[in-house]
Every structure is written in C-alpha cells, then in structure tokens.
C-alpha cells in the first residue's frame, strides 16, 4: 500500500461526519413537525368532542340560508354551502385575474414612465409610486370605497354619461345585450379569427425566413380577429335588443353592474400592486447595461427595436421572479375584500363558519384554495422563467 505523505487522518467520532449530520438534522426536523401536528390535531378533536361539534364536510350539502351581494353564477339563499363557497371562489378569482392583468399593465406603464426623459411624466410616476406604496392597502380600500359611495350621487341623481350607462353610489350600471344565438356565432367567429391569425403569423414567419419578405401580419391578423365576429353579427341578423337598467324604487334593475365593492377592491389592489410592479419593471430595465443599448443602436436598430429585441427580453429575466410574488400578494390581498363587504372566498367562508361552527373545515377550505391558486401562479411563472433563462451565464 502507498504511504501518504501527511499523517493519516485520525478517525473522528461518527457524529462529526457531514453526511450523518445532514441526515440527522432532517430526521429531527421531520420528527418535530410530526409531533406538533399530532398534538394540534388530537387536541382539536378532543375539544370539538367536548363541545359536541360534528366534524367533517357534511355541512357543505346543507342550505346556506344567506344571500351574497354579487355572484358570477346564479345563486340564492336556498342554495347549499357548497355553492356559496364556489361563488366566493369565483369572486376571488375574478378580482384576482382582472387585478393581475390591470396591475401589470398599469405598473409597467408607470415603471417606464419613471425612466422617461420627460420631467413631468417622470415626476408624476414617482409621486404615484412613492405615495401609494407607503400607505397600507387596507386604508386604501376604505378610501376608495368611501370615495365611490360618498362622492357619487344616489341612484335618482345618477350620472348618465351616455344612454344606458348610469354611475351612482350603487356602482356602474350598463345596458347589456339580451342573449341571442347570434352571439354564440360571434364567439365561434372570434375563435376562428384568433386561430386564423395565429396560423397566418406562423406562415408569415416561415415565409420571412425563406424569402425575407415581410407580411403585414398585425394588420391582417387584427382584421381577421375583429372582422369575422362583425361579419357573424351581420349575418345573424344584427340583433339589437338591449337589457337597459331602469330605476325601480331606490335602485336600478336590469343590465350589468359593477358594484362599488368590486370597483373599490379592484382599484385599490391595482393601484397598490401597480406601485411595486412599477419598481420591478424599472429595476429590470435599468439592470440591462447601457452597453446593450449602444450595441443595438450601433447596428442600426431603431430605439423601438432595441427595446423590443434586446432590452425587454433581458429585463424580463430579472422581472419575472419578483413579479410572481406581486401576483401572489395581489391574490392574497384580495381577501381584504371582507373589510368592504365584497363577497370573496374569505368573506363567504367566514359567514359559513359563523353559522355552522365548522371553523376547522372552513379555514382548511380557504387555505386549500389559496394554496392551489398560489401554487398554480408560481408553477406557471417558474415554467415561464425557465423557458427564458440565460444560457452559459455563470
């Protein structure tokens, strides 16, 4: 056997082995969590039993017996708890999805505006970001709710900016077309238009690669997407019947409604989250070195193309991870709806818990829904982030 040059290492005690330590620490952590869960569950079950509260999700089948102020699906107090929770989930998803879309748009505009060389535009964006970012979201929700319900006139004196549209402290009422099979035809035409535009885009891209000739994809695509539904509308006999909101007693009946609660929640969430997204976008663009812009310009690219082909794709890599947490924050903050009476999941689950006493099940449902939504958003954004990750950058 070869004699090594140094002293043969004296074998130290087995608990000094890094691998053993790694395994042991994990065993301890897992064991600790297991004990804690067992303690909590057995305690809860014992307590519920002494107070003779039934456990389980059987209550979902029972009649809820309370009304909600707005619902995307038909709902009445005679429906089950199951259905009212679905209403809450749908309301939460509605405000989160619209909120995420608008906050992204608004935040991106504000972020780019803060970088503008126009002094007024940049200052305005700065004041917005620094102002709203530093006020608690709950206060902002109260503020917008108060603004809408206190400064707007009552239904009898409602603003009527155009025929069929009324703005009052009961929200925004607008005329809605009465359902007609033609609208189904239009939806089909829209789908065909979108698929057609997509196929056209691919074909144009292929042809550009082959021949270098550019095709006005945007204009022709837009014509397809807008034109086909219009064509379907005309072919379907151009139905014109409208469900116009009308004052009945103290409120409006008929038509579509944006309630003050939804509007206040949406405006609050969008403006508040928009400030964070603005900073994320600004930081992302600033993180791309100025040399990248110069190299693009030196190649004869226009400023617009430099932004689109060079800056934004690189900024996106920096923007996506913090943007994900803002999307999650917005979704979770939407539970503050309970404070201004918008029937989101937390709000209706709260009422259900109060009526049934099934707090553990109620909270479990809320947590499961938020977890599912959050993990879905995370998974999508992580997938997207991996898709655009930089190669070979160490």
């Amino acid at each position, binding site marked *: 056997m070869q004699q090594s040059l140094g002293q043969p290492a004296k074998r130290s005690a087995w608990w000094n082995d890094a691998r053993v330590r790694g395994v042991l620490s994990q065993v301890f952590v897992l064991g600790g969590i297991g004990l804690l869960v067992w303690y909590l569950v057995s305690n809860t079950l014992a307590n519920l039993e002494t107070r003779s509260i039934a456990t389980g999700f059987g209550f979902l089948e029972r009649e809820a017996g309370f009304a909600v102020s707005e619902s995307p699906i038909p709902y009445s107090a005679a429906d089950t708890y199951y259905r009212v929770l679905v209403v809450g989930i749908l309301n939460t998803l509605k405000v989160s999805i619209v909120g995420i879309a608008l906050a992204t748009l608004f935040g991106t505009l504000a972020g780019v505006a803060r970088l503008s060389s126009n002094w007024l535009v940049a200052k305005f964006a700065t004041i917005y970001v620094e102002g709203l970012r530093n006020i608690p979201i709950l206060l902002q929700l109260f503020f917008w709710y108060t603004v809408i319900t206190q400064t707007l006139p009552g239904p009898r004196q409602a603003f009527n900016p155009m025929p069929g549209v009324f703005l009052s402290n009961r929200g925004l009422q607008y005329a809605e077309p009465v359902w007609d099979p033609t609208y189904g035809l239009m939806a089909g035409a829209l789908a065909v238009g979108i698929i057609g535009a997509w196929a056209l885009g691919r074909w144009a891209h292929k042809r550009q690669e*082959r021949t270098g000739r550019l095709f006005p994809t945007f204009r022709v695509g837009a014509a397809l997407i807008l034109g086909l539904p219009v064509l379907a509308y005309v072919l379907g006999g151009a139905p014109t019947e409208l469900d116009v909101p009308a004052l009945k007693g103290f409120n409006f009946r008929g038509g579509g409604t944006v309630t003050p609660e939804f509007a206040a929640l949406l405006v609050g969430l969008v403006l508040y989250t928009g400030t964070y997204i603005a900073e994320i976008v600004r930081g992302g663009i600033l993180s791309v070195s100025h040399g990248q812009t110069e*190299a693009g310009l030196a190649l004869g*690219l226009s400023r617009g193309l430099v932004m689109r082909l*060079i800056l934004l794709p690189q900024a996106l890599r920096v923007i996506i991870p913090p943007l994900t947490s803002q999307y999650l924050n917005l979704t979770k903050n939407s539970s503050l709806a309970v404070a201004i009476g918008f029937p989101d999941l937390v709000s209706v689950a709260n009422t259900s818990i109060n009526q049934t006493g099934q707090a553990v099940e109620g909270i479990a449902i809320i947590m499961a829904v938020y977890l599912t939504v959050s993990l879905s958003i995370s998974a999508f954004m992580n997938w997207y982030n991996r898709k655009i990750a930089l190669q*070979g950058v160490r």
Partner: protein
Amino acid sequence: MTPGDTLGDTPNSGAAITLESVHKWYGAFHVLQDINLTVQRGERVVVCGPSGSGKSTMIRCVNRLEEHQEGKIIVNGIELTNDVKAIEGIRREVGMVFQSFNLFPHLTVLENLTLSPIWVQKRPKKEAEQAAMEYLERVHIPEQAKKYPGQLSGGQQQRVAIARALCMKPSIMLFDEPTSALDPEMIKEVLDVMVGLAEAGMTMICVTHEMGFAKTVANNMVFMDEGSIVEMAPPKEFFTNPKSERTQKFLSQILTH
C-alpha cells in the same frame, strides 16, 4: 506580416469621414476641443492618448452614440444631424466594436450575427445565416455558432463582436480599445482578425495602445490629449520623430512597458 512593414501608402480616394472643428461638452467639461480629422476611403487611423483624453468620445461621435455640439461631422457624404432615419442609415454603414464586447447574452452567436441583417436590412433568415457563417469562418470560430456568448472566452467573444459588425457589410469600422479587456494570450487572435480586415481594405478608426499593431496597419497615427488632437502623422514619423513634447512623453511611457 511583421511589425514595421506597413500596408502601403495613405489612399486618396475621397473622404469617408470628416470632422470639422468639432466641439463637445459634458456640462462645463470641454471634452472635445476643435477636432479636425479626415479619414479617406480605405484609410486606417489609429488613435492613442492618455486615459480620459477623449478618444472614445471622439469615435462615438462618428456614429452618434454621442452628440457633438459644435462643428460638422460628415460620414459617407451625409452630415450627422438630428435626423433619426439618416443616423440609422449611417449606423448601418459604420460597424463598431466595443472594449466590453457588448454581445447580446440572450441570443446565440448566430442570432447575434443575424439580428440586424434580418430586422434592419430585411434579409431572409437563411441567407443571413449563411452570410453569418462565412464571417464566423473569417474570424476562425464557425464551430461556436450555436453557443451563447456566456459560453465563450473573451477573445472568442470579441471576434464574434467583430463578425457581428461585419455582417451589416459596413464600409467603415470603428474599434474602441478592442483588446484592453483581454488576457494577453487572446489579444493576438483578435489583432490577427483586425489585420486581415485592414489587408482587405476596410476604412478603420481604431483606438488602441497596441503599438505593434499600429505600426503594422496604420496609415496615420493620431495622438490625443485633454480633448484635442495634439499630433497626427504616419507611423514611421510618429514613432521615430514625434514633434510634440507630450507625444514624446506618452510614447516613452507606453513603449517602455
């Protein structure tokens, strides 16, 4: 080719670049002071001078990455003004290579090379890629085409940057210290490519302190200090018999290193 023999006399086939009494200020700081310089078609000018003397600023004015405030700059017969389209046109004719490469890290080498031909010159992708491969062969790294810039060595990256500029088929090339960010063993591979360009008759302005390279390719040497052109002469004269004291001092510092 060994340092010492030059690539021939200064061509006299019409001006490619003319700077006439050009002045530029950064705030109160007078960074370019009365710059007059004419570069003939096919001529190669090497610019040197101490740090902060305005060398980068001067050549960046030629493709208007910086704006001058007084005087005239004329490139290929077109004066640089605020006309955005004219500027973009000139930038297509003028390739630039930076000290820090500035490759686009989110694109492969091949995509770096074909970006501008496809989007600016509207060439078919196939054709742009074929041309790009030819230029990659010219800088001796065709096998790296599918890699990303972050996977290449500094010398390879700079050669890609040169190829990227060449893909636009420019008539003029500007180099701003293209080898100063490179390890010594990589400097030669980049300089070799540049010598090849010079031999092919490219009009070049090159800021560099590689005096061996300067002696080989330059028709004219320009020495700048404190925002002015202090001395301009063919390399033989410039290196053996500099007129100004400041040039002498600079050369003695740089050549003893």
